[in-house]
């Protein structure tokens, strides 16, 4: 295993700076929302986390397809890295959403389409990790993981559509909204800047963590190969 590349070291520093800057911008630059007050500030990180989570799950689906087509284990390493990280990011999105929902919707949780889909999404990818942990052969683990991640990738949008056939109260701030959404607002220019900046900061954060996790995955692979060699 080669030592940490310089590009990654620089990215670590940039990420730390961006996250601190984003936090500062959210608290000091963004104006206070007139009706909801300070709790609205959670929105910037909530959406950023959800966005990064979705990005990771999508990337994992694509990696699954690439793995099945090529059989190259490097796609598998990226796939499992993306799923693990996105699980955490997405969970953060759910928790921050809950913090916001308590004062605005007057409940921690409601069985709204987006919330329900988010919960099921977490369960799908938790099942994915359980599936992987139950298989000893690295090659079979990668194959099954790829198949399951593709199934999840296809079923989650269908789940969302299905539940959306029922009614939604989740506000859609970016790009149109449901007429009966509760807690929606329109962004002022400063809010929009803050929002875009935190999206950017979290995207960089995601790339940084993904890079670390992929390196860890490669190390795991190496250890596994050494162990197989010893067992022989």
């Amino acid at each position: 295993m080669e030592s940490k590349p310089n590009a990654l070291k620089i990215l670590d520093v940039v990420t730390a700076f961006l996250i601190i800057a984003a936090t500062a911008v959210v608290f000091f630059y963004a104006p206070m929302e007139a009706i909801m007050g300070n709790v609205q500030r959670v929105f910037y990180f909530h959406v950023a986390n959800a966005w990064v989570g979705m990005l990771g799950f999508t990337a994992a689906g694509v990696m699954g397809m690439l793995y099945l087509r090529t059989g190259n284990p490097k796609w598998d390493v990226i796939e499992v890295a993306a799923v693990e990280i996105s699980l955490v990011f997405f969970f953060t999105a759910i928790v921050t959403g809950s913090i916001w929902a308590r004062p605005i919707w007057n409940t921690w949780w409601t069985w709204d389409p987006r919330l329900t889909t988010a919960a099921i999404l977490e369960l799908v990818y938790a099942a994915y990790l359980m599936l992987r942990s139950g298989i000893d052969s690295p090659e079979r683990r990668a194959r099954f993981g790829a198949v399951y991640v593709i199934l999840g990738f296809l079923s989650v949008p269908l789940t969302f559509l299905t539940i959306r056939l029922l009614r939604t109260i989740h506000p859609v701030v970016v790009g149109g909204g449901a007429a009966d959404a509760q807690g929606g607002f329109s962004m002022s220019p400063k809010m929009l800047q803050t929002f875009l900046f935190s999206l950017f900061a979290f995207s960089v954060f995601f790339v940084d963590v993904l890079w670390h996790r992929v390196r860890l995955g490669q190390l795991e692979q190496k250890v596994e190969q050494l162990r197989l060699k010893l067992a022989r």
Partner: protein
Amino acid sequence: MNDRVPSPDAAPAEPLAHPGLLRTTLAILWKDLSAELRSRELLSAMLVFALLVILIFNFALDLKPAIRKEVTAGVLWATFAFAGTLGLNRSMASEKDRGCLDGLLLAPVDRSAIYFGKALGNLAFMFVIEAIVLPVYSVLYNLNLFNAGLVGIIVLGSVGYVAVGTLLAAMSVQTRTRDMLLPILLFPLVIPVLISAVKASAAFLDGLAWGEIAPWFNMLLVYDVIFVAIAFMVFDYVVEE
């Protein structure tokens, strides 16, 4: 598969006789059905389990006549889903335990035929269970469940459930945790089927207009088409060694 390369030692006059996909599928289906006809261990277990689930719901939900109508669709689908995993697990585990799966994989046939054969077998077992549960439920709860629309929804829902379930059972049977893993893998993926099926069944039982039912019906149809196609495409990767 289509290009006929004559093998060197075969007489040139005889082309290689490949049994078609349909014939192989039916052969595997027939094998499963006749094995089940002789042992009856799978169907009896599924049936008793399904009745037990209904019994538990009876006490858990306190199925009074007033609320029966609203929860019937949910109770039925939960019963089918739970009994279904039992059948899916068993049908793959019996192949694996006796080394039959390896034998099937050695056969010079298209592997999709193995998937379709097993899936049709599982579907047949689901239908048998559903065909017994529906009249029993009707008698026990004094509700008329003989409704052509409801039967149609049950067929569509079962197809989607079994399409994904057979694929995942083939995967889970090859893991260390085996039977335990199947429901964990399966349930989050079949949520669209369960929601749409419950909603459509309830709508049919309430005698709602087609306009209310159509979105759920379409969702079931879309899910069935997508997942049968996907399972067909990826099954090779699940059994490849």
